[in-house]
């Protein structure tokens, strides 16, 4: 039976159900136990499972991940939380030198089945250090899977898939979707496959590739364009690494145009990689330039409302991109 849940409820439910199902699963991070998390993603888990399995850690992101890596090496299934993607930097060593490479450097002798939940994203007045996405840093690291859901259904299914995945999975959660994204979520157990994009809207005129919080905005923009007779196909990547190249390429070969939308900074972002894939694999199918609507190359999202607004991708900017592309 499905009910309507918010994204954050879906995330909490996935953790609770998996902890019930699998004794090896436990949660660790800053402020996740006694307080239930800054955004209440772990609300209720402490009361249900106790300190043993819902562990408030010292304020040390590097050690949160390193200790989770070590615990996974002896067969446990940790879910580590990074309170804000902005503060993942102290954990860079643990993520990119340890989690992503332990299997490779031991030729499979040691594995790392680890889920890192990371709260990210702007548009909430968080300012420079409570708004960053930073997912692209990790897409550059083979050995790490990177996912970001846009719906409560995917949030639960992707999280269950992440916990069960024998590889390290970075699970990015956009804070703006926590309570604005609502949708049907089955009560029971299911997974959403990692590495598979979802086509959210069919359309013949252009392909829009996006993910996370940008997905509902792209869908809204596509509806607006529809009024003027332009039908955009909207692909929600859901997984940023490994990328579902096939779904993107198949669509672009049909629509012959591609718009890429992401919130994170532009240079060397996901959009740059998708553009390159399309240029390499579908060059002759293109009827117009690849267009990117992205966050700007500015160090981080500034605090003052007009500045934050100027940074953020919104429906207007996406519509403008669609119009530019439609003209070809």
């Amino acid at each position, binding site marked *: 039976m499905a009910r309507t849940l918010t994204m954050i409820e879906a995330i909490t439910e996935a953790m609770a159900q998996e902890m019930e199902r699998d004794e090896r699963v*436990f949660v660790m991070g800053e402020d996740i136990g006694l307080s239930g998390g800054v955004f209440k993603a772990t609300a209720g888990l402490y009361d249900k499972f106790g300190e*043993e399995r819902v562990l408030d*850690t*010292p304020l*040390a992101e*590097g*050690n949160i991940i*390193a*200790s*989770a*890596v*070590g*615990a*996974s*090496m*002896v*067969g*446990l299934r940790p879910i580590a939380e990074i309170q804000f993607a902005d503060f993942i930097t*102290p954990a860079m*060593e*643990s993520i990119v*030198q*340890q989690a992503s*490479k*332990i*299997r*490779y*450097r*031991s*030729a*499979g*002798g*040691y*594995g790392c*089945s680890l889920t890192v939940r990371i709260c990210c994203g702007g548009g909430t007045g968080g300012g420079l250090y409570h708004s960053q996405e930073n997912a692209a840093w990790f897409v550059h690291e*083979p*050995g790490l899977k990177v996912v970001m859901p846009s719906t409560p259904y995917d949030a639960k299914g992707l999280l269950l898939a992440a916990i069960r*995945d*024998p*590889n390290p999975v970075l699970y990015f959660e956009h804070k703006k979707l926590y309570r604005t994204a609502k949708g049907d979520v089955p009560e029971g157990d299911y997974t959403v496959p990692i590495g598979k994009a979802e086509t959210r809207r069919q359309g013949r005129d252009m392909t829009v590739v996006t993910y996370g919080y940008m997905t509902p905005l792209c869908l809204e923009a596509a509806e607006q364009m529809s009024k003027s007779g332009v039908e955009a196909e909207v692909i929600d990547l859901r997984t940023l690494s490994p990328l579902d190249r096939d779904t993107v390429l198949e669509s672009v070969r049909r629509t012959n145009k591609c718009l890429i939308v992401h919130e994170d900074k532009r240079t060397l972002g996901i959009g740059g990689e998708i553009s390159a894939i399309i240029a390499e694999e579908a060059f002759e199918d293109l009827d117009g330039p690849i267009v990117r609507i992205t966050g700007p190359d500015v160090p981080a999202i500034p605090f003052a409302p007009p500045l934050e607004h100027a940074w953020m991708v919104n429906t207007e900017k996406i519509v403008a991109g669609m119009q530019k592309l439609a003209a070809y």
Partner: protein
Amino acid sequence: MASKSGRAVAELETEKSENGRELMLGLYQMLVKCRMCDEKARILFRQGKYAGNFYSGVGQEAAEVGAAYSLREDDWIAPSHRDWTANIIKGAPLKLCFAQLFGKATSPDRGKSTPAHMGYPPIHTITPASSIAGQLAVGTGVAFGLKRLGRDTVVVSFFGDGATSLGGFHEALNFAGVHRLPIIYVCQNNLWAESVPLRLQTALTDLSDRAKAYGFPGVSVDGNDVMAVYDAATKAIARARSGEGPTFIECKTYRWYGHSEIDPAKYRTKEEVEAWKKRDPLVLFEKVLRDKKFLTDELKDKIAKGITQEINEAVEFAEQSPYPDASELKDHIWAQE
């Protein structure tokens, strides 16, 4: 050398124990084995038999052997760059250790990791990353996992004086203290971190003082006295195994050669090096054994001959082993599903 463990006065428990002779000869044999393997690794590098680099631990064997010798088969070691021989002490076949130097397909990591950065999963030595203090953090995580699983297995983490300056070191030891993790932090203080002298690394005299900040005991021992290290380690291991938590052991020691095989180590004085070579951990221990009449010339020869033969076979195995095929480049990035 001043020692907080009271080594200067107390009779060592190792010497008192009933199987003292057997144990001491075992330690001696392992010291010789590590020395000979390490010297061989250096020669092979100089002969151009393998590329990359090697970080010799010659001069520091007593710290390495003393700390790891009494570990059980199911215990773990988190080694660093200078601890290739930790694998030997824990029981890795020499063939694999030399295949590791050569980067051959028969090495535990099939030629992926660098020569000195060796781990061997069946005996629970963790293949280290090169990033200093990284292995210490992951080793702490393993101890965390073992404790959660309710096992009575322990982790020995090896690192140098330089590693104690990194943030990851502090984070790991702090966490280990909070959760009384079953881990023994063995710092081989060889007075130098590459070319940086200890006085520019820390204002401390005894690195074991750091343990105070994490709420567990720290001891400084003569790292060239294998029995002093062994005694401190067995106590720390027993403590960890019984759930009482971590111990920090500083082994004051010295590396004889450069930081790596490409480092002429011109930053150190000849006098300093010579003074430490006079305190060769093997010579010191040999004297103890001879005084006790545990070691004769005959036995010494026999031990050396046995090891030489084992090394020769291992080197031959390594030389004859194939390199990994280029098709293996993308193996082991992801779990096999």
